Each structure stands twice: as C-alpha cells, then as structure tokens.
C-alpha cells in the first residue's frame, strides 16, 4: 500500500463520518476457519473527541457523486477532491485493522458513480472479497444505493449483516426540496424489498438451517433533524411506522450540521443536539417501553419538551395513573414510571417475589429516585413530599430537590456502577 492510501482514507472517512449508524450488534456469526466473528451484543472499540463510539471502519468507497443533495458534503456541485478505493483496498484495510482489534467490522457507504447499479456492484465486490477470499466473518454493514436493481439488493443482503438505506428527510416535500435527484420511492422501495426478503429468509431458515442468512442484523435508516421544518410529531410517527411496517432495527437521528452553504438550508450554525437527544429518548420509549407515538406527542403539542424527558412529560400529563405501588404494579406499568428503566423494572419484578420491597431497596436495584420518588409508593409509603399536581411536580423535577433523609442509598462500593453495555445508550451508539 502506497502513501496515497493514507490520503484516500482521510478523504473517504471524512465523507462517511456524518452517517451516525455505528451498531455492531444484533448479529451472531461464528468464525468458520477464517478470521473474525460477530458478537451479538456489539462492541465499541474507541470513542472520538466528539464522544461518538468507533465500532466499525466507517468508509466511503468513493466521494464522487452524480447527485446534488443540498445537505451532503459529497454533493456534485461541491468543489472538493474526489477519490475512489478499489474493492481490494477496502478489504485489505478492513482486515489490517480487524487483526489488530481496532474495529468490529466494516461500514461501507458510498457516493454514486456512473449509475446506482455500477456503484452497488463495486460495494458488493468489496464485501465479497472480504467474505470469500479473506474468509472474514466479522460484522459488515452495507449501504444500499437508492435506485439499485433488486437483484443487487438481494446479493448485498446475503453478504452483509445489516443493510441500510437512508431516508434522510422525513417527508416527500423536503426530499424534493433538498434532494431533487432522489425520489421517496427509490428509498422506500428497497426498504420494502429487504423487509420481505428478511421475512421469507426467516421462514426458510426455520425449515432448514442450511439456507444462507439474509441480513441477520436487519436494516436501519437515518433521518436528518433540523434541516427542514418537520415537527417531532411527524418524525416520531414516521419512525413508529418504520418499526411497525418494515420491522427496522434502528432509526438514527442526525442533528443537522451545515457542511455546505445553500439557500435552501436553515441559516445559523447552532445544531439541534438537545432535540436529537430527546428524539432518541422517544425512540427508546417506542422500542423498549411499549409507548406509541400518539401518547408522546399530538397536534396540540407537536414537539418534544426540551426541559423534560418524554417519559416524565407523559407521566405529568397522566397523573391519574400515579403513584404506582411498586410491589403490585405489573411489568408494563413499572416501565412507564419515570426513573425506572428496562433493567430496573426486571430487577423489581424478580426481587419482590422474595418479599416486599421498601423505598430504600429501590436505589439498590438501579432505580433513579430523583425522578421516580414522585411517581411511586412502596408498601404504601409515598416520599415525593408533594401533592400530585403537575405544576408542583414539574417545578420539583426541573429544579431538583436537595437530598434529604438518605433516600438515595450510597452503596458500599467505591466505584460507580455501570449497567450492561449491551443495552445501547441514548447517545445512539451500539
């Protein structure tokens, strides 16, 4: 490898870094007489100075593009140096990094050169080289090129662990405004196709394990937040539909960062990171907490509260359901209490079988008492110290209360407890 690889790598990594997807989870692949395997819980290898995790070698095959999407750094009209890697170079880099345990696998995306089909074939060739010549069994996330032939989409899914195609803009109108060369159908079409292939593949594999797996880690997509004027209600409802109709594994949200000047884009350089964070929280509520989009947002208040997390916001609008008795509430009710997460809810259910839980036990089980205290009772005891009134509670929740009465028990261990990393964090990793 010559030194120009160094330069190409820098240019192509810079072009790929705005794609936020980084998950290496959800697939399990054994090492069959080669190198590598895919761990089902996902592993992060490092974190860059923006606090995002590095799990996959995130790379563009090329930053040349025939399209001219307003938000994209690789748009045709942007005056920048264009380079391209060969499939062999991609494979060599991946294996070199993987052998040193820098990465969990490859995330290969690309600009569109010549035609969608030609580009898709380049990506497939790189991944084929890895899988067949290097016998690489690590994680591969492959981007589908909008408008590529369905046969190529199918080929891609048979080689990769996860495939994705980015919706980028939540509505048809925004897409027409900012990405005039792409149609909604050219994105949704492959998504629908992949979903049906996954369903068929699962059925075939339930009959015979010899059938090769198709995209075992499913598919994901990304939405840019803040480049256009959609409300959170529109975005969260769209995500809900994507999860329900296309069984997507993840929808990623990317706070818009202006990388190129364009009159169609919002001015100013403030990126809506707080909003992105709230959207991820709402997304988690959809996927793991049994909430529906209409419970979190409606026409009257179409945007998420920036001061308050969406679950606490929901609880304050439904005070008639609280306080919840921790020893009697069922699992679904526990999940809806602010300050109780998936794992602490499980622990409560397990622990209370062996005897009633008191208020002091809850912090030990991982419940965040700072929020939960206003919404629960334990053995009938309420320690919120405040009437169930949404205005009073709101003030207490936002301002916070001084610690009193040793409610948040200190643990006898010196180090802070980290919960299992297999559950992804709100920052969008894993």
């Amino acid at each position, binding site marked *: 490898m010559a030194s120009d690889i160094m330069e190409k*790598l820098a240019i192509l*990594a810079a072009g790929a*870094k705005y794609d936020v997807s980084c998950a290496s989870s959800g697939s399990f692949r054994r090492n069959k007489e080669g190198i590598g395997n895919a761990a089902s*819980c996902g592993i992060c290898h490092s974190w860059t100075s923006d606090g995002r995790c*590095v799990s996959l070698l995130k790379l563009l095959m090329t930053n040349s593009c025939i399209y001219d999407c307003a938000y994209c750094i690789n748009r045709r009209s942007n005056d920048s140096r264009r380079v391209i890697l060969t499939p062999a170079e991609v494979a060599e880099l991946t294996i*070199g990094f993987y052998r040193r345990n820098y990465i969990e696998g490859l995330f290969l995306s690309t600009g569109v050169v010549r035609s969608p089909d030609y580009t898709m074939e380049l990506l497939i060739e790189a991944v084929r080289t890895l899988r067949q010549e290097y016998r690489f069994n690590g994680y591969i996330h492959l981007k589908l090129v909008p408008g590529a032939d369905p046969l190529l989409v199918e080929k891609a899914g048979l080689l990769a662990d996860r495939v994705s195609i980015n919706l980028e803009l939540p509505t048809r109108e925004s897409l027409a405004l900012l990405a005039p060369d792409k149609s909604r159908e050219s994105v949704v079409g492959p998504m629908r196709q992949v979903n049906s292939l996954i369903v068929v593949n699962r059925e075939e594999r339930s009959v015979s394990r010899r059938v090769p797996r198709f995209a075992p880690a499913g598919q994901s997509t990304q939405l840019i937040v803040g480049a256009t004027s959609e409300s959170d209600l529109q975005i969260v409802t769209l995500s809900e539909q994507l999860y329900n109709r296309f069984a997507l594994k993840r929808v990623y949200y990317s706070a818009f960062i202006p990388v190129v000047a364009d009159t169609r884009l919002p001015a100013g350089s403030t990126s809506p990171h707080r909003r992105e964070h709230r959207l991820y929280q709402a997304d988690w509520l959809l996927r793991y907490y049994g909430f529906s989009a209409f419970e979190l947002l409606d026409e009257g208040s179409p945007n998420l509260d920036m001061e308050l997390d969406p679950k606490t916001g929901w609880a304050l609008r439904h005070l008639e359901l609280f306080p919840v008795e921790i020893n009697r509430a069922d699992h679904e009710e526990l999940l809806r209490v602010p300050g109780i997460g998936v794992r602490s809810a499980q622990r409560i259910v397990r622990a209370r079988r062996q005897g009633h839980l008191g208020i002091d036990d809850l912090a*030990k089980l991982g419940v965040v008492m700072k929020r939960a205290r206003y919404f629960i009772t334990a053995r009938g005891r309420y320690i919120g110290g405040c009437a169930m009134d949404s205005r009073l509670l709101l003030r207490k929740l936002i301002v916070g209360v001084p610690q009193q009465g040793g409610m948040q028990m200190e*643990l006898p261990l010196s180090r802070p407890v980290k919960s299992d990393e297999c559950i992804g964090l709100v920052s969008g990793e894993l």
Partner: protein
Amino acid sequence: MGGDYRYDGTFAGLLTLLAHLMPERILPDAIGIDPPHQQSLFAGVTFIETDKELVEDFWGELTKRIAPAGLSHIRRTFLAEHPERELMICRYLQLAWEVGKKIGGMLAHPHVTPLWKLSQQVAGEAHRYKGFVRFQETGGGLFYAAISPGHRILSLIAPHFAARFSDQHWVIHDMAHGEGIVHDRLRREWLILPMVINAEPDLTPAEVRFQALWRSYFTTLAIAERENLRLQRSKVPLKVRPWLVEFPK
C-alpha cells in the same frame, strides 16, 4: 466465630476454605492470601491448604444450592480487585445455605447487593476490554497486546479472542497483574501464565503503517462541531489510553 483465614490465592483454594467454613457456620473477620509455607508467620492465622477432591465435592454442592447466574457472580467477584471480595462471597454463601435458591431473587439483600454489583463491574470491564485490546504485529508473526485493567479479567475475555483470532498467534499481557493469555494458533488453545516483559516489542513495517493509518483515520472521524471531551473521557478513561494506538503518548 471470627478468625483470620488465609488461602493460596487460587479459586480452588478459596473453595477449599469455604468448604471448611460452611458446615461450621463460621464468618471470618478476614480472609487473605499467603504464599504457601509462610502461614506460621502470624499468630492466630489459619492457613487452609488447597484440596482438589474437597473442591470437587463442594462445587457439586454449590451447583445444587445456587443457580448458574449466582455461580457466575461468585466467579466474577473472585476476579475483582476488591479487599473484601472473599468475605462478600462468604457472606453470600452463608445466606444461600440459609434460604436456598430463593437467593437468586434477593437482589436488595445487604449480603447480595454488593456481590452482584461488583460482579457487574467486573463483567463491564471485561466487556470494555473486548474493545480496548490493541494487538501489535511483531517479528515472528506474534500479535502482542498490553493492557492494564483494574480487575483480573483475562479469563473472561480469552474465549472471545480465541474464537475471533483463531488463526493468529497472540498474547494479551495484563501488566497490572503480571499475567497474560497465550494463544497457540496450531493447537487452538490458550493458557494464562505469569508474564513479564523486559524489551519493547519489535514491530514489523506493516504494523508501523497500519498504526499510522489508524491514527489518521481516528483523528479524521471526529466531528469538530460536536466536540465533547468530557463524554470521551468518561468512555475512554485516561488510565486506558497509554495502551491505545489512537491516543498520542
């Protein structure tokens, strides 16, 4: 009741000790490690000799009394770097002897909480080190990695790396505890051995190139507009950075 007990530092040694203590319902004041044959140095200290047969019987009894999840908590607690790890295990077992398998759910009990929390810390660190190991290719085709974890996690990460890099000769060296995993590519086996290093590894030209590529890639990847060094530091603590290629020395 009470007393100061010593064992040889192995898991089998601790199990032997516990096998002696359990039937008598003894809760020691302290459990410590002594190199064998030095037990007579302190008065009032009881040294328990490891007894393989007793361990096997006792392990059988443990598996009857405690569910598999509880046994993994015990194993991981044993690997923790914590002055009271043996006493925690001892208290946990005494409770298990009292209440039986119910102990699996007693997460808020004062003898159970410290154990699973510590076990979770060990498991968490082991998981992070699946990512934080950096192999360097040295002359002779050996891939060498040095780490410095807080707990003794080598036995927890070895199967992961053995499965992933089964076609490589590799070593993961725990500098903090003076031991390392050695993986043999031909026999597809790994061992944990005492280890010291007295020379800098001799890197191949390919290694130097890949390290440079990785550093440049890593720097490019950060989005300047979103810089968040505090978040980065909570994810990659300063103490692990000396072993990571991508962080400057």
